[in-house]
């Protein structure tokens, strides 16, 4: 299973820093995902520091294989209490899950998360733990097995308390309102992405606030366990020309979406698989060579310039461009697991000093793109050199 995760947040109205903090990390072997959402006491910079500290500590503990319960207990017992309000400095929810569906969740003070299966909530039994040092601090621990299609949705109290004091929601949206809205979203679009779902939830919370001014920091983190959508990007001819056919056949056999980035690579695939490259002149190309089409291939573009530009778009989060690089970005972001087949053959002409721009080495660009996809867009990416 692949776990699609994202978090959306809105700052408390008038503040310049988020008081909620979200971190997530996949293990190097991509089999494990850890995420923590923490809500710092108060708002603004102080809350940001408290929640950042709490979530980062929690993440480090879990990463180091300290059992999640033990990590949460240690943090809960060591977090200070606000001298004025006499309550904890920061609340948190942490999740540690594996690709096989094993899930551990601990919560301290945050609204209880939702486990949605086939559009309805699955009730879960929690194991309670009370801090011996601070009797008002309660930890809830859950352990269960997620199935394909399941969703886990966390929120900060900015969601459940949204609209509090208004005629329509005198006690706020509450957990019932949060659940009801998630159900509506899933009924409308059962395969909605975590990005879209979390964004819809926070927008809903904001919409019920008086004047649409967030009365607290609003956060929603969503996880979606699904079969991974695979994609393959073939760029650059193999170092050994004798292997052209072999690599073209493995490209042909790949089960998933396919893109070719590179004129010479496209020519090679066209030659080996006997498929024509068809120009699509009507699509806007901006100042990049336009994309083309080939039977059985979802996208064909020029190589280095397009890859370089697409990497820039990913870096700057410019996800709306229509040119060939924008199309490549869409191709990548609509997949979960992305494989790159990178040929080591260099085109000497690209390194001619008289070229008006400096062209980067293919490997460097692909490595940068892989890091961005993993760190910024939570994708799994792997590079095979040929």
């Amino acid at each position, binding site marked *: 299973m692949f776990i699609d995760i994202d978090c959306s947040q809105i700052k408390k109205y008038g503040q310049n820093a988020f008081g909620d903090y979200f971190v997530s990390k996949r293990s190097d072997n991509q089999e494990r995902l850890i995420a923590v959402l923490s809500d710092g006491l108060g708002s603004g910079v102080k809350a940001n520091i408290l929640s950042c500290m709490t979530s980062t500590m929690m993440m480090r503990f879990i990463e180091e294989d300290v059992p999640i319960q033990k990590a949460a207990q240690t943090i809960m017992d060591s977090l200070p209490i606000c001298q004025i309000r006499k309550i904890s400095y920061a609340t948190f929810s942490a999740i540690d899950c594996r690709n096989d569906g094993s899930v551990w969740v601990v919560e301290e003070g945050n609204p209880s998360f939702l486990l949605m299966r086939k559009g309805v909530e699955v009730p879960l039994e929690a194991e309670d733990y009370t801090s011996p040092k601070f009797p008002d601090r309660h930890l809830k621990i859950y352990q269960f097995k997620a199935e394909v299609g399941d969703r886990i949705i966390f929120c900060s109290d900015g969601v459940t308390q949204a609209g509090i004091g208004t005629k329509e929601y005198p006690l706020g949206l509450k957990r019932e309102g949060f659940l009801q809205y998630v159900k509506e979203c899933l009924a409308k679009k059962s395969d909605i992405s975590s990005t879209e779902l979390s964004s819809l939830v926070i927008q809903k919370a904001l919409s019920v606030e008086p004047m649409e001014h967030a009365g607290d920091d609003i956060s929603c983190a969503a996880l979606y366990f699904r079969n991974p959508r695979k994609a393959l990007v073939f760029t650059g001819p193999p170092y050994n020309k004798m292997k052209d056919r072999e690599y073209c056949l493995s490209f042909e056999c790949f089960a998933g979406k396919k893109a070719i980035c*590179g*004129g*010479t690579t*496209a*020519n090679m695939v066209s030659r080996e698989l006997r498929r024509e*490259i068809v*120009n699509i*002149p009507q699509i806007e190309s901006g*100042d*990049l*060579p*336009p994309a*083309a089409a080939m039977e059985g291939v979802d996208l*064909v573009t*020029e*190589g*280095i*310039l397009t890859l370089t530009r697409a990497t820039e778009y990913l870096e700057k989060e410019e996800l709306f461009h229509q040119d060939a690089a924008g199309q490549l970005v869409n191709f990548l972001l609509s997949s979960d697991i992305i494989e790159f087949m990178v040929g080591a053959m260099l*085109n*000497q*002409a*690209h390194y*001619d000093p*008289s*070229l*008006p*721009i400096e*062209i980067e080495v293919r490997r460097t660009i692909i490595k940068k793109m892989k890091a961005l996809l993993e760190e910024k867009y939570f994708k799994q990416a792997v590079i095979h050199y040929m």
Partner: protein
Amino acid sequence: MEKIKVKICQGTTCFVMGGDTIKAMADALAEKYGDKIEIVPVRCLETCHESDSFSKAPYVFVDEEVVSAADLEKVINVIESKLK
């Protein structure tokens, strides 16, 4: 009379060396020659791989004739010679 095929390379080197003039060239040729020629933008023609002097991009093929360091004037000259 068979149309003259003008292949304009859209490969990386040609694109960088010719840049946006390639599109302007295609538009100007289409306007001047109408249906006497057929303009075909193509993926890398791989001419740059074989060239000893890399600075000859951008490349345009007029039928089978290679025009290196192509600009509008050079391509027009080759087309004119073929039309005679």
